[in-house]
């Protein structure tokens, strides 16, 4: 019983930390993009705008949640929750440190993939239940995109699994300890690039943000949402970014391993790499224009998936020979 309580407390701590990260990720995003576009960004609430995320939260909480006429009410309410839960639960499997992982599942990697494949439901159901053309189109696009890129992502992660010989994320990190640079980055450079691109597509971020393309679909699948439900979709997107970055750090960059260990700060290297990835996401958003739909599908099916299969094949052969 005490084990269960300990697990619950750990979950709550992790959740609170993740939420704080998400809150300040939005702030960082606005600040960094403003910097890249030679603007100031949020600077009114608190010193240097540091309290901006809390002001946003208050605003969203006090807004009226509108349920439009003609929607399928149950599904309309359920969809943002599905999105958030599927995006957030992945955090439980990512090892922040050799002694700190919430769920040390044998097939943790597969569970994360399963959750990310379930998160398509939140989007597709939100699009359908809104009873709106824009939302439906956004939902359909997004589902097609998420399914296509999931294949490339899964295949690129499989070659990591072949190298490490385990589905357990902790074991994958430990398998990287003896390599030069303590990372699968160089032996798996093709897999890494494929994973990076498909992870951006999985999170529906720029340049693959077709589901919510403002200029053509208004806001895509969540156009009819307002107030806190609207915010839940945003939360889900940022949680997904955290999970995908964590996965990239764990599988390709050696997780908590670093050139030297820092006493008292075991999470230091993991967090440093994580922040680098999150910055990369934001950087992409400030730099790249949106892909066209057929370009997106071409890239996924004709380039990334064959590349990932080739990589898997090569990895397996090398593993057999060595």
């Amino acid at each position, binding site marked *: 019983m005490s084990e269960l309580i300990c697990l619950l407390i750990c979950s709550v701590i992790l959740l609170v930390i993740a939420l704080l990260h998400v809150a300040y990720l939005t702030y960082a995003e606005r600040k960094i993009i403003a910097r890249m576009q030679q603007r100031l960004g949020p600077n009114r609430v608190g010193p240097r705008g540091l309290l901006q995320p809390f002001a946003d939260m208050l605003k969203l909480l006090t807004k009226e949640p509108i349920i439009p006429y003609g929607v399928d009410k149950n599904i309309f309410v359920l969809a943002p929750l599905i999105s958030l839960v599927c995006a957030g639960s992945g955090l439980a499997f990512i090892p922040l440190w050799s002694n700190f992982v919430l769920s040390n599942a044998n097939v943790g990697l597969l569970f994360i993939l399963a959750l990310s*494949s379930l998160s398509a439901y939140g989007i597709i159901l939100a699009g359908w239940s809104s009873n709106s053309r824009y939302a439906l189109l956004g939902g359909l696009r997004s589902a097609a995109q998420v399914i296509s890129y999931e294949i490339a992502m899964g295949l690129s992660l499989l070659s990591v699994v072949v190298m490490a010989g385990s589905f357990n994320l902790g074991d994958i990190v430990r398998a990287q300890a003896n390599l030069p640079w303590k990372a699968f980055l160089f032996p798996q450079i093709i897999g890494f690039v494929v994973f990076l691109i498909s992870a951006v597509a999985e999170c529906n971020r720029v340049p693959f943000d077709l589901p919510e393309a403002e200029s053509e679909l208004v806001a895509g699948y969540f156009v009819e949402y307002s107030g806190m439900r609207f915010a839940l979709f945003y939360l889900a997107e940022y949680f997904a970014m955290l999970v995908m970055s964590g996965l990239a750090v764990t599988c390709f960059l050696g997780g908590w391993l670093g050139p030297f260990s820092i006493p008292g700060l075991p999470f230091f290297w993991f967090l440093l790499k994580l922040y680098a990835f999150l910055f990369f996401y934001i950087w992409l958003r400030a730099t790249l224009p949106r892909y066209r739909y057929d370009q997106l599908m071409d890239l996924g099916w004709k380039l990334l998936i064959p590349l990932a299969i080739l990589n898997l094949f090569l990895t397996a052969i090398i593993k057999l020979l060595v």
Partner: protein
Amino acid sequence: MEKLVFYYLAFAMIASGIGAVVSRNPVHTVLFVLGLVLHQALLLFTLGSEFLAAVQVIVYAGAVLVLFLFVVYLINLKKETLKRRFIKNFSPCFLIFLLFTLIVVKTLLFLPALTSHFKARLPFPKGGSPLYFMAKNLFQTYLFQFELIGVVLLVVVLGAVFLLRRLDNPSEEGK
């Protein structure tokens, strides 16, 4: 505790199955099946097979059912949903349903005798990873059968493509 979880899962699976058959809206039907699949995955999890549970979610919930949803979106089912009943009162289906129910009830009545020497348990050896065990069986002991199933699936895919080609308007061929 274990029994409680099992009864919850069994009840939820049966309830969502009934919901899937009864509900009139095709999207709701797909959602009920999704619930069924997820509970099934949990059941596998409680039986000690994490791998099968994860694969169940990835394949069925993540791929197959999303495709079902796509199909439901793309074909217009408005007319069907307006119908009050899909089958008439006394159709052959109803007879078959009755027969099937009889069989199920009969089996259930014999179940207590069965459970004494038959326990639902996946054949994993104690100790050792179930994943390793399964991979060894799939790719060594039963490799031929496994590949054979792959060929069968390939035939199904080719058949589907062939049928689609045939249904196309002949005037559009060669474009």
